């Protein structure tokens, strides 16, 4: 079993590496570099940046060298635990991201939990009562979340929040807690701001989860062991919950890994609209400003989060599904 997890971990590391390359590539894709966009910014504010100045900047930022050189420099930094300087924020990348990363995780996880709370029962119900009215209604609700463009939904909720409840506009904290020290009060303030983003994000993922649960369960429901269980004289509820559902949960658990990036991606858009201090808006800005270390690090971190998510789900899977334990050990 340990060997198995070890193997998965190795794979994860490989994946992370691959992502780091991809991340770096992604950032290099757009034309120009940070200096170009910096000059553009200056220019649009009526300030002059001459070619010589630009050249200087490029040298100072170590741009201009071939991409792979830059990549290896970056890698070396990272290995030393230094993710480099954000060109736009003129601070170490780690500081810039800082709290935002955790807020991202919090928002995502909140959404994830919500997703399950909705998806599991609905999925089970609509599998057991396939084609019943309930099945339709349940899946319908699930799909609405998927179908509504979440950026629009977010904006509308934002506005309604202001009109109806005079709520603080956007963000995850009230101004007074914006950069206060962590405290019970601050956590509570965060909790109060969490529902809207969580709902918007959660809903988007629910349909997918419902479908997975439903399909798995439909699959299991046809297995002979269900008949066996029934023929023992168990009550229907117990038959369903103790056997097929239990088995159907396994593939479900394995989706954690894939749900996480889905939600994190979604969180970027929603964060933008709701102005959440997550890495989402930061990433978008960084990509536009071509602030490569910042953008690169964020993409990398998101990737790592995903890999970790996958790893966790693998481990969970091993724990709850003895079969794998057998095969793998």
């Amino acid at each position, binding site marked *: 079993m340990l060997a198995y997890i070890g193997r998965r971990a190795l794979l994860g590391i490989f994946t992370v590496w691959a992502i780091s390359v991809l991340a770096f590539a992604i950032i290099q894709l757009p034309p120009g570099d940070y200096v170009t966009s910096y000059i553009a910014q200056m220019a649009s504010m009526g300030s002059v940046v001459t070619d010589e100045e630009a050249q200087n900047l490029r040298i100072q930022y170590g741009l201009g060298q071939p991409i792979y050189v830059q990549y290896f420099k970056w890698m070396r930094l990272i290995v030393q635990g230094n993710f480099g300087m954000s060109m736009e924020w003129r601070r*170490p990348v780690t500081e810039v991201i800082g709290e935002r990363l955790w807020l991202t995780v919090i928002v995502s996880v909140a959404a994830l939990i919500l997703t399950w709370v909705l998806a599991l029962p609905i999925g089970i119900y609509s599998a057991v009562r396939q084609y019943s009215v309930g099945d339709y209604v349940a899946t319908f609700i699930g799909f609405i979340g998927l179908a509504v463009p979440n950026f629009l939904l977010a904006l509308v909720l934002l506005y309604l929040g202001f009109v109806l409840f005079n709520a603080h506009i956007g963000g995850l904290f009230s101004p007074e807690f914006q950069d206060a020290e962590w405290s019970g009060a601050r956590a509570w303030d965060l909790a109060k701001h969490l529902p809207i983003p969580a709902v918007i994000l959660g809903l988007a993922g629910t349909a997918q989860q419902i479908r997975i649960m439903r399909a798995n369960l439909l699959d299991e429901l046809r297995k002979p062991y269900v008949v066996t269980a029934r023929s023992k004289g168990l009550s229907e509820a117990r038959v369903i919950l103790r056997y097929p559902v239990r088995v159907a949960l396994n593939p479900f658990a394995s989706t954690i890994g894939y749900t996480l990036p889905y939600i994190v991606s979604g969180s970027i858009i929603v964060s933008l609209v709701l102005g959440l201090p997550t890495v989402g808006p930061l990433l978008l800005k960084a990509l536009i400003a071509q602030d490569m270390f910042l953008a690169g690090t964020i993409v990398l971190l998101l990737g790592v989060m995903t890999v970790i998510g996958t790893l966790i789900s693998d481990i969970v899977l091993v724990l709850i599904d003895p079969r794998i334990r057998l095969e793998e050990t």
Partner: protein
Amino acid sequence: MTDLGRTPRTRQRRSRIVMALVVGLLTTVLAAGALAQMAKSGLIGKLEGPEVVTDPAKFPKTLNEAPQLAALVKAGKLPPVAERVGQDPLVIKPLREIGRYGGTWRAGFTGPADFWNGFRCCSGPDHLMFWDYTGDKVMPNLARGLEMQDGGRAWLLHLRRGMKWSDGKPFTADDFVFWFEDIYRNKDLIPTPSAAMAINGKQGTIEKVDTHTVRFKFPEPYYMLPDVLAGSTDLAGQMFGYRGMGGFAPAHYLKQFHPKYAGAAELDRKVKEAKFDSWVRMFLAKNDWALNPDLPVLSAWKTVTPINTPTWTLERNPYSVFVDTAGNQLPYIDRVVLALAENLEVLNLRAVAGEYDYASRHVDLGKLPVFIENQQKGGYKVYLDPGDYGGDMIIKFNLNYDADPEIGKWFNTADFRRALALGIDRDQINETFWLGTGTPSSVVPADGNKYNPGPQYRKMWATLDVKKANEMLDKLGLAKKDGDGYRLRADGKGRLRIEIMTLGGQFVQYTQIAEMIREQWKKIGIDLTVQEVERSLALKRTAANEQQLGAWNNDGSEHLFTFPLHVFPFELAAVATSGPLYVKWFHSAGAQGKEPEPRMKELMEKWKKAFGVPEKERIQLGKDIWKIAAEEVYIIGVIGMGPASMGVRVVKNNMGNIPSRQYNSPDGKTPGISRPATFFYKN
């Protein structure tokens, strides 16, 4: 319909009659014209603002200070206010009343790229000279006075005695010398000398006369210097410190980061420690007014939490040299908190919700109705500050475009440019995107502006006249049209297609407007392609001379001489260009680039000349420049004197000394020109 149906129908009819009446009223109002409408709306008041008192007789005899500072003085942590301010305070007569101390000014900003936000509100303004509230007259500011010598070849700058940096160290001529010798002249920090320090391309020098006197010396007369010091130029004070500019810098503090003073090894260590890639990066970061809380400043507020954090906070500078006529040290407001807003919609909605005490930057004109609607709820009032510049939106012809000779040829044909200008239905655009608050206009600045050539130029080639436009184009030899009614190229290479480059996400919705113009130009048989690009690309293309038409605004052009880049080809790094080759020609004094056509050349000559002549002549030259610009239509003016860029002002009702209208211009650092240091909270 059933009987049941009737009653509601009659009711409907009645309500319709009422509504019809309303409409009648509205239409008449509309007829009365935009201005009348503004007046009615009461959103645009009369231009007003605080004044700098220069007559020592009117100076306050005693000085007061904010309570918390007084407490510190009592505690012995701070010298008495008189010592801190010095013998020659910068006295400002508040707009309406003497204010009360205290309060926090809540506002929003969009991230580290948004430093202008803080410059405008809170940097003092810390120019040596600065504009009065009309934006026309240059007044002493940090400097006590500026004295011309030697026919404009030298200028004596008199500093205020006893004036101090925010850390209590004296502000003296040495800070100018340090800047000039060790920053400005250091090739690593400043690879290219600034045009602001030069006259006719010849660099000037700065030297110390005595502790409180500095001399600027130039090889040729530099009459423009006062305006240059007042405007948002490279000599505009600490705000451009992040680029090594400013005209002065806190020598006593910065020396420790300068290789000349700190040992190379020592400096190297510091750089490593601070994780910078080079000492230059670090030095510039340390000299960044918005980024470095330790940097000694002269502005009314100083940064305490830097711009690269979720909240950019500034607090009163205890050594601020600004005082009101009653002798109260300014600013009145204790702190300014700019909270990071991840996007503009959130920022605007927060303003709507009254979460900001004063907001104009990033406030979207398109949301004006929403702001007005929520005035009560948000406890704020909406003001409009139309700019003085002629173009909230302008369209530049790239006169050097040569990728397609045919197109290039037409761009260099005055009548072609004029015809296109006549093909734009400005009223439509004004109504749609300025909600009728702008003025259809050529590029010339507001009538009040001292360089305005005269009322007749406002509408020159700036009215809708499809018939005339078509005639002109036909005459030019573009009479042939294709099946869809578009004009064909003279070289027989099919339809005459022109492309306009726009930027998204700006104060003005250039792309959408351009789309509207595309529709309008159909009527004159011109096929316009709208190409929205993002900034860095726009820049690349203009520099590479790949742009055909470019949409932008000419804000700043009301200060024609300190902000020329939207008047004629002056700047390579522009998001919209009138001709990169002309720029090269202009700056290389004819050595490189392409020689402009006579009238353009004339315009450029006049501009250059103006720096070396007394104000009277300069004003005349300015008028001439605008005349040429208007007649030749190198740049199409679309809508001008509108509030589109930072002209929609949302201010809490409890804020005092708020002008009902202020001079809106980047050169005036609006609202800096209204001296935010005199704003205060009534309760």
